[in-house]
């Protein structure tokens, strides 16, 4: 079918290859290259793939509405093997090296390559003075490759390849400053926590292939239809839950969110690209990709929604008390991801993807701006040592302010549209979920403006030696900021809701690929809910947001000592929240230390039983046997040999006495022989005479 496809769609598989090539180049001979060459190669390759994805997106648009899908299979990865499914039917298992482009992955590749390119450009400025420049960009390009593989895969197995690839790259990049213990620990933490989710995800994949007999996304829908499972089938629920566990791992949801705040140890562009814009959203993508399964498992959907809502609330509450600027952004990322899962959980997968996109814009911008601030303050991350920077670094200030307004959800900005879409859907599903999301929105506004005020306003608390050389970042860092700011403003307009007289193009663009729960489908058939309700919801949220902003202003500009008093007032709760609800300690005491104990026990077992009894015993036995055989060799074998040699030596004594190499003794022997000969001759003659 690839034959009649236009060029870009026929060659999607090229898309991940550009970053792969440059990554290989970096990792193999990057050490030899100059920084400029590295910039051109890496950013250039990402830009090329961005152009490529834009082109393929346009060509995808040109296709007819109902089959906007392009699949090209390079080759069969695992050859077709017939096997028995759970229901006994015979299926042909096939996993091929195939790429698939449909509206969902099109959005994803646009976000990934676009934001990725901007962040590459930013990184060229941010990392300019770091060591291991080529290493950093090599990892970054490798991540781009893996992420594109992830979003372009046409089957679970290939998606899992990308899934693990991004995990590996995130590990490498978190631990980029491997000489810092905290950084390497954070990398390890991220990796291990992800392992849990990945294990579940892998189980889900197995169950899927066992149940549906296929791995291709395109075949899942038909397989489900052919298997005509009724809604709530426990096997489907199990698959859905397993997938969701995988998603929580990758996308930092409760209970596996703990790795993301620590991941802020990595360089800021990494935080922006991987831990805000792209990778952490892979879970959302995956859930959306498998929405056909989820709609058959309402209970799983409920779990997703609840977990997402609670995560959003928890993370927001933790973000309120954080003082490290990047940590604040990290918790806000977690809570925004919670929003997305909330959307998915209530069945509004398209809303989730929409929020994913807008979030990629403004959260990436926030991280980059924060990085610019840190850059300006030469490495300072603690907000209590900032303040009154708005005049000193205006561009950073304004772009960050825009992003903050966007994430807070002020009316025309992108965040407003996506978040209110989610809230609307949640309200239609369940009021409690809506309430949580609503409250979270307020907290978001509060802590984000707390960040803004503490950083840019009030009186300066910057150290003096730092004070002197505060400077605006270079142009290579500012241009991405500006572009992303523009996107944070206008990026959401592609889904301008009908209520405000728009037509949500984006939603309808995504409609064909995502499934919709039956009751929603029924409501949709029943007709749109009351306009006034939606408008009211919007106004309510705007009001709450404004309150949050004012509270932040009051606390951190007007009465700067008040936060401390509040903290003292509700001490234990503050401490609880400030210490992140002791989650890490809890996990440590529950899992980590237990695992360590298990390791110790196993180690003891190894030492005592396996090493002691087994290995050392075997060694001792071998040595004993070898001693015996050595005794045998020495005394019996060698002994007999030496005995033979001794005998020969004894027998050869006379010969040796003869063969002494002295000519005169030889002469003596000649004389002796002569005498003997003469004696014999006389004997003969005497006999002859008689």
């Amino acid at each position, binding site marked *: 079918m690839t034959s009649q496809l236009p060029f870009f769609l026929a060659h999607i598989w090229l898309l991940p290859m550009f970053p792969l090539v440059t990554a290989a180049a970096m990792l193999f001979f990057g050490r030899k290259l100059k920084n400029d060459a590295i910039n051109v190669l890496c950013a250039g390759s990402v830009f090329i793939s961005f152009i490529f994805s834009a082109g393929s997106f346009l060509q995808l648009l040109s296709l007819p509405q109902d089959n906007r899908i392009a699949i090209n299979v390079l080759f069969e990865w695992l050859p077709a093997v017939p096997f028995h499914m759970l229901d006994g039917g015979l299926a042909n298992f096939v996993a091929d090296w195939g790429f698939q482009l449909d509206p969902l992955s099109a959005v994803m590749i646009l976000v990934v390559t676009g934001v990725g390119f901007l962040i590459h450009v930013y990184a060229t400025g941010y990392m300019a003075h770091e060591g291991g420049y080529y290493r950093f960009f090599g990892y970054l390009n490798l991540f781009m490759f893996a992420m594109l593989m992830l979003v372009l895969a046409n089957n679970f197995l290939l998606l899992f390849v990308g899934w693990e690839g991004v995990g590996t790259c995130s590990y490498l990049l978190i631990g980029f400053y491997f000489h810092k213990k905290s950084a390497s620990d954070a990398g390890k933490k991220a990796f291990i926590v992800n392992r849990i989710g990945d294990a579940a995800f892998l189980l889900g994949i197995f169950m899927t292939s066992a149940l549906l007999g296929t791995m291709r996304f395109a075949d899942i829908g038909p397989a489900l239809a052919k298997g005509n499972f009724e809604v709530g089938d426990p096997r489907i629920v199990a698959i859905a839950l397993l997938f969701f566990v995988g998603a929580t791992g990758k996308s930092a949801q409760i209970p596996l969110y703990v790795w993301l705040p620590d991941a802020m140890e990595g360089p800021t562009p990494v935080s922006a690209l991987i831990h805000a814009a792209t990778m952490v959203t892979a879970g959302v993508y995956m859930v959306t990709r498998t929405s056909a399964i989820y709609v058959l498992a309402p209970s799983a959907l409920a779990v997703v929604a609840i977990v997402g809502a609670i995560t959003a609330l928890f993370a927001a509450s933790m973000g309120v008390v954080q003082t490290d600027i990047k940590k604040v952004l990290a918790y806000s990322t977690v809570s925004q991801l919670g929003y997305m899962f909330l959307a998915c959980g209530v069945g509004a997968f398209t809303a989730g993807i929409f929020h994913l996109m807008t979030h990629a814009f403004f959260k990436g911008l926030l991280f980059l701006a924060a990085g610019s601030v840190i850059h300006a303050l030469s490495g300072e991350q603690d907000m209590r040592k900032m303040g009154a920077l708005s005049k000193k670094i205006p561009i950073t200030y304004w772009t960050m302010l825009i992003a903050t307004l966007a994430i807070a959800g002020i009316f025309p900005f992108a965040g407003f549209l996506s978040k209110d879409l989610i809230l609307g859907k949640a309200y239609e599903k369940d009021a409690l979920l809506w309430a949580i999301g609503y409250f979270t929105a307020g907290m978001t506004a509060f802590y984000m403006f707390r960040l803004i005020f503490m950083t840019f306003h009030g009186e300066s608390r910057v150290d003096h030696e730092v004070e002197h050389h505060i400077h605006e970042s270079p142009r290579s860092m500012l241009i991405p900021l500006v572009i992303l700011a523009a996107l944070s403003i206008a990026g959401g307009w592609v889904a301008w809701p009908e209520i405000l007289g728009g037509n949500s193009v984006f939603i309808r663009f995504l409609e064909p690929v995502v499934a919709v729960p039956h009751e929603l489908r029924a409501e949709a058939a029943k007709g749109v809910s009351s306009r006034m309700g939606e408008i009211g919801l919007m106004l309510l949220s705007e009001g709450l947001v404004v309150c949050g902003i004012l509270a932040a202003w009051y606390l951190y500009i007007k009465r700067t000592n008040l936060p401390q008093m509040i903290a003292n007032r509700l001490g234990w709760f503050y401490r609880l929240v400030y210490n992140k609800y002791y989650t890490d300690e809890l996990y440590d005491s529950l899992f980590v230390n237990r695992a360590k104990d298990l390791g110790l026990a196993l180690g003891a077992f190894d030492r005592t039983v396996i090493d002691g009894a087994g290995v050392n015993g075997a060694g001792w036995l071998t040595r004993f046997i070898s001693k015996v055989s050595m005794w045998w060799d020495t005394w019996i074998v060698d002994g007999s040999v030496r005995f033979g040699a001794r005998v020969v030596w004894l027998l050869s004594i006379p010969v040796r006495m003869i063969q002494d190499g*002295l000519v*005169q003794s030889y*002469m003596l022997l000649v004389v002796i022989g002569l005498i003997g000969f003469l004696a014999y001759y006389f004997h003969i003659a005497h006999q002859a005479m008689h």
Partner: protein
Amino acid sequence: MIPTEAYLILSLALFTIGVVGVLTRRNVIIVLMSIELILNAVNINLVAFSRHFGSVDGQVFAIFIITDAAAEAAVGLGIILAFFRNRETVLADEMDMLKW
């Protein structure tokens, strides 16, 4: 007219002395000289018999023996010189490099 056996006994005596010298002396040069002595005894023997049988063949053989003695002395002394240059010794029982 002196009987032939007198010459034979003389040559026997010289021969025995030569043999003793060859077998017992450590100095290679004296060993060589003893060999010359032995050859000399043989010469006496030959000449005595040549007179005994009234033909000169014995003397011819004596001449050949003298020739051989000359050759042997030349080569032997050459060897001794070379050996002495390398080993600083002319003792026969220190020349045991054959024994390896």
